[in-house]
């Protein structure tokens, strides 16, 4: 049953993703791309890209998009429902405990350990995306000099400078898209 499997996989993602939207990406990738090969890394990066531009939390968008691509609208519903189910239970239980007993110190300590872990996971996901942008493949190829995509270098460098200059996300992605189209057409001609 693909629907149950989707629900269960995203349940696990929802349970283990601590630290907001970006932190959910490596977990979704581990399950959907590396684990079950439901999506390629490129499709996954597309989801991430589209999630940045549409309303709603990135984690929910990614779960919905992945579910939709894998098993249509029912798949999207199952993935999203799975993703929020652990939150629903945990949030209610912990809120009850905190309203009753006050601050819960062990949660603080667990988060102290998880914050650096999230940094590592985001770095790891980011590195995968950088390699995909530069070589159009999931790992650095053997002939990495010949296969390097010059468009990727130009686009990525430009976009990175723009991000550091605090250009807003939507504007950045619109201009990156236009730049990608121009470079693509230029590469066709010459």
């Amino acid at each position, binding site marked *: 049953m693909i629907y149950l499997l989707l629900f269960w996989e995203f349940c696990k993602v929802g349970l*283990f993703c601590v630290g907001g*939207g*970006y932190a*959910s990406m490596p977990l979704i990738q*581990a399950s959907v791309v*590396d684990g079950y090969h439901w999506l390629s890394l490129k499709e996954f*990066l597309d989801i991430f*890209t*589209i999630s*940045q*531009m*549409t309303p*709603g*939390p990135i984690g*929910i*968008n990614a779960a*919905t*998009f992945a579910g*939709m*691509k894998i098993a249509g609208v029912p798949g*999207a519903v199952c993935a*999203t429902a799975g993703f*929020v189910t*652990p*939150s*629903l239970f*945990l*949030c209610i239980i912990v*809120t009850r405990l*905190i309203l009753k007993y006050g601050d819960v110190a062990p949660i603080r*300590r*667990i*988060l*102290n*350990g*998880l914050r*650096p*872990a999230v*940094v*590592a*996971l*985001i*770095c*790891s996901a980011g*590195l995968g995306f950088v390699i*995909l*942008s530069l070589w159009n493949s999931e790992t650095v190829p053997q002939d990495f000099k010949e296969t390097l995509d010059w468009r*990727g270098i130009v*686009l990525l460098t430009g976009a990175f400078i*723009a*991000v*550091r200059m605090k250009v807003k*996300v939507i504007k950045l992605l619109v*201009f*990156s*898209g236009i730049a*990608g*189209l121009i*470079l*693509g057409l230029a590469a066709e001609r010459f």
Partner: protein
Amino acid sequence: MSDDQYQAVRNSTQHFYWKLFVSTFLISAFTVGGGFVIIPLLRAKYVDEYGWLDDKETLNLVSIAQSMPGVVACNSAIILGYRMAGIRGALTALLATILPPLVTICVIAVFYSAVAQNAYAQYILKGMQCGATAIIASVAYDLLKKQLKKRLALPLVIIAGTFVANYCFDINLMLLILIDAVIGLALMRDKRFS
């Protein structure tokens, strides 16, 4: 506010659940970006406009939402909804938060499948992918810099260990997160770490 006061506020509001659903739905439908954008909007609605929650308690509840697993925006909706109107409130607010992105993304996914093979769409997507990669690279850079500035050994060991285990040895992410949670629970009692 006490529990009785919450109940009084709820009973004095006509169509409480419908209002809760519509206001949360609209906020979720028109907010691009994650929890840190949505929380101030929810607060403005629930606290300032409707007076359903008091200000100080909302801040406390939101800080719980940020430390729970899952999406911060959904957690906030669940917890604030729960505080206002129990389990029914939590379910109403959660449904109102996830429905708009669910519908939007389903529509976009259909378009995506239709145009993704087109050469021009590929060029545009390639550009936008590089843009999104730059965003996540920048987020990673900032987070890493912040950790390095603290000059604490243990978090850096966790970062290096988790990165190598995940990227080089492909060790199960959930296992890594569990291990790091146990390290935090056992060794990171000190205030410096928070």
